[in-house]
């Protein structure tokens, strides 16, 4: 039960964050180049993501035994979550700029205004491809979380439904706001998602080591599922400590930060 609540919370928060970023791209294309092409690109990306989720989720759940599945997705989730946590710590310590949807929107809008108009299949090709790529790349992160959480908690449909609900919430909010959702506390949400991914990733990756033991049963944690909130709290404590000491370790020289849009490999 605890895993299901964690699943819903992590997938919803991560999906909101990624959907807000995707919305900024689609909105910039819609406002400057036309909504028809922007929505067509979004729909094409959503269809591709749905196929990808079903195929990858089925393959993982069918081919891997329980402990091997936990080890694989746990390790991936942990590495992925620690990337989010790393950026959150650097932002919290003032060593990396905060992500800002208004400046991302301005950047996208300016690129769209300068691009040449090419029409294919009745669509503005620039707006279509930028929307498709933007939604797909942000969506892949959601799919990754949906599949890893869903398969580990044996609840891919709940994970996929939660992600879809989050995307719909953001789309509706964007529709009424008519502007990027810059008031969504994205950096705080990313920090929270990083903690959840790191906590669950630690739990599953370590449990999955049981695949190497005689019998191949998952390694049991003390307290079983109750270890998950303890792990999340422990990651939170570690991150707060790092936020406090990182500026001292960095020294008096300013940290050479790149613009956030460029430095956005994953979160």
């Amino acid at each position, binding site marked *: 039960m605890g895993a299901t609540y964690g699943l819903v919370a992590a997938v919803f928060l991560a999906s909101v964050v990624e959907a807000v970023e995707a919305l900024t791209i689609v909105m910039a294309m819609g406002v400057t180049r036309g909504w028809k092409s922007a929505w067509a690109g979004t729909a094409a990306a959503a269809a591709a993501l749905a196929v990808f989720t079903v195929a990858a989720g089925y393959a993982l759940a069918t081919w891997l035994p329980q402990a091997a599945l936990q*080890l694989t997705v746990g*390790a*991936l989730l*942990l*590495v*992925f979550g*620690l*990337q989010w*946590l*790393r950026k959150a*710590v*650097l932002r919290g*310590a003032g*060593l990396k700029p905060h992500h800002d949807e208004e400046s991302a929107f301005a950047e996208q809008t300016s690129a769209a205004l300068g691009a040449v108009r090419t029409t294919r299949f009745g669509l503005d090709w620039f707006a279509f491809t930028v929307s498709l790529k933007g939604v797909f790349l942000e969506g*892949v*992160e959601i799919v*990754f979380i949906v599949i890893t959480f869903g398969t580990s908690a044996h609840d891919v449909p709940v994970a996929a439904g939660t992600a879809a609900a989050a995307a719909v919430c953001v789309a509706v909010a964007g529709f009424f706001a008519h502007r990027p959702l810059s008031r969504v506390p994205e950096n705080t949400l990313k920090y929270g998602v990083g903690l959840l991914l790191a906590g669950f990733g*630690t739990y599953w*990756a*370590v*449990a999955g*080591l*049981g695949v*190497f*033991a005689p019998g191949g049963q998952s*390694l*049991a*944690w*003390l307290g079983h599922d109750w*270890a998950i909130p303890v*792990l999340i709290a*422990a*990651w939170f404590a*570690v991150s707060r*400590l*790092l936020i406090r*000491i*990182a500026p001292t*370790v*960095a*020294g008096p*020289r300013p*940290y*050479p930060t790149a613009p956030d849009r460029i*430095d956005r*490999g*994953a979160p």
Partner: protein
Amino acid sequence: MNVPTLAKGFARFWYAFVIGDDWKIAASVVAVLVVGTVALLAGAVPGGVLAALLALLLMAGFAGVLLIDVRHRGNS
């Protein structure tokens, strides 16, 4: 676009996606899991205690790697 270029782009995308900006984080996770596997096979520590110790190692590894990165960039 030819196949090697596509394959290289595909690999680069997944590397950036999973490993990200600091490969040392992924390396520290793998190292702790290898240590955990060895300890599990040796049977020296009970499973529940081993799990807790590995969690502490993962946290220590992350903290160490992050501080190395911060110090390195601060000095560069």
